[in-house]
């Protein structure tokens, strides 16, 4: 059976990027939901302060394992992930691998349920989409080593920023990926 797949608003609800309404001084504004995985408490607090000041909703994780758990518990409901590379218990590389595996699994599940929906409503004219959601994961690295970007892309990350962090760097990378 030949099927044309197109995004369906009801069935692919969990595939959409979440945009959370948050109040600011000018009224309501749309703000992205960011997962920040950083083990160093000072760096975590600093990064969170900057991101919150910029109007983003931030959830923190103290290591890679916690980041994966939070990502999965929220059904991948983040717009972007900042991932420190060196963390105890589980580092950024492994955490990214787990997240990408979960996303692939989720996409397959959604495809199956969408295909079933088409079969169940074979007389209706609506079409469904196999829309793969991939949340951007941005590495936080300590050193700008040559080849770092390639390494990050290889393991399923989308980009990287080097420490020291600052507001400009954060805003530029968020603007690029959200």
């Amino acid at each position: 059976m030949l099927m044309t797949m197109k995004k369906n608003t009801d069935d692919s609800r969990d595939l959409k990027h979440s945009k959370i309404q948050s109040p600011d001084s000018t009224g309501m504004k749309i703000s992205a939901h960011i997962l920040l995985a950083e083990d160093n408490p000072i760096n975590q607090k600093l990064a969170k302060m900057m991101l919150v000041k910029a109007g983003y909703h931030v959830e923190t994780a103290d290591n890679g394992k916690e980041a994966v758990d939070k990502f999965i518990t929220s059904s991948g409901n983040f717009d972007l992930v900042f991932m420190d590379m060196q963390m105890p218990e589980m580092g950024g590389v492994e955490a990214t691998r787990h997240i990408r595996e979960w996303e692939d699994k989720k996409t397959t599940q959604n495809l199956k349920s969408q295909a079933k929906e088409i079969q169940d409503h074979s007389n209706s004219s609506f079409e469904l989409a196999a829309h793969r959601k991939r949340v951007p994961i941005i590495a936080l690295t300590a050193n700008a080593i040559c080849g770092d970007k390639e390494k990050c892309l290889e393991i399923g990350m989308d980009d990287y920023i080097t420490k020291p962090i600052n507001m400009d760097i954060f805003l530029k990378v968020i603007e690029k990926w959200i």
Partner: protein
Amino acid sequence: MYLKKLFERLELEEEEYIELLKLFVLTCRTDINKLRSAINSNNPEKVAMIAHSLKGAAVNLGLQEFLELAKTLEKTAHDRQLEKTAEAAHMFQKKLDRVTAMINS
């Protein structure tokens, strides 16, 4: 320490930066104690790991003197010159004391 320059560079308010400094002092004191234990048990790898973490915090807060000392801690640990590491740890501790006094004043 030019506090104004530091918090302005990060586009933070003074109170926010002080809050971070307090956390820095608290965390570093714990780390320096762990580092001393690692020196005493002759574990340069662990010393270097702790020093690396100290370096990461200092660089983000723009604390240049702490950064230089953390680099010395890390380098001497890598070179397995733990006596020099202990000296640098002592200096790091003294600087922490000075920052604590400044915060409390």
